[in-house]
């Protein structure tokens, strides 16, 4: 599959490799305001950071603690969904 363009949301590949590529070839890479670039960068940063945290937690303590941490984070996200703004009635 091929990207239509780095700006396109609709034809984007859903892979971390593509996220790296899209981040680096983005024609608006250097623009101050570029939410798509920021999203890609933060996604890759969080995935990488999470991998390091998981690896070091397993190395220094054990795997169950890493999975427990993972579960707690997912539980926090579950709670956050109570706060998301709703679509307007027209949008529904």
């Amino acid at each position, binding site marked *: 599959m091929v990207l239509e363009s780095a700006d396109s949301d609709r034809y984007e590949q*859903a892979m971390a490799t593509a996220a790296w590529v899209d981040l680096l070839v983005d024609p608006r890479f250097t623009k101050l305001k570029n939410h798509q670039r920021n999203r890609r960068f933060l996604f890759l940063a969080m995935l990488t950071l999470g991998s390091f945290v998981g690896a070091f937690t397993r190395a220094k303590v054990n795997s169950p603690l890493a999975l427990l941490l993972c579960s707690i984070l997912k539980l926090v996200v579950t709670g956050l*969904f109570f706060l998301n703004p709703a679509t307007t009635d027209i949008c529904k």
Partner: protein
Amino acid sequence: MGARLSTLKEHLQDSVQDGEEERFFVDIELLVLSFATGIQDAISYPDYHCFASNQTGNTVLLALAAADVGTDLFNTANTCLSLGVFLGGCFIMGQIGNTLGARKRWWLILTNLFSTALMFVAAGLQYALPVLVSGPRALGVITLLAFSSAAQVAMARPLNVPQITTVSRI
């Protein structure tokens, strides 16, 4: 009390704004889930010699297994199970979401709670019993982790933030 329950019910019935309409909560939620995925895959490979959510990795391992190359570096049964459960989970959870309303607040909460519960059970199993690379216990934990990942991805996609898929490769 009745009015509050009614308000809560309405709140849960709402469809939440997607990533094009809203940029704060959706982004934070998906980024935290991405962080959690990183943790999960960092332990699944050394523990079970397969990935729980990185299914491109598992597909490559499957091809290597078919060619009988480097099979001492990964576990073929675990890899096949993870891939199968992930794909099945995506289909099941995705289609249920499509039917019930993939951006309904109650569905997002329920499906994420379900995914979290599977992860807690996996953590509990690992804590209570020694971690083995292969065998029924390993297959059980992989099933829990892969289905949890699938439910997470199927939940995240309708939020329409293609830049943050929450998993490393799908």
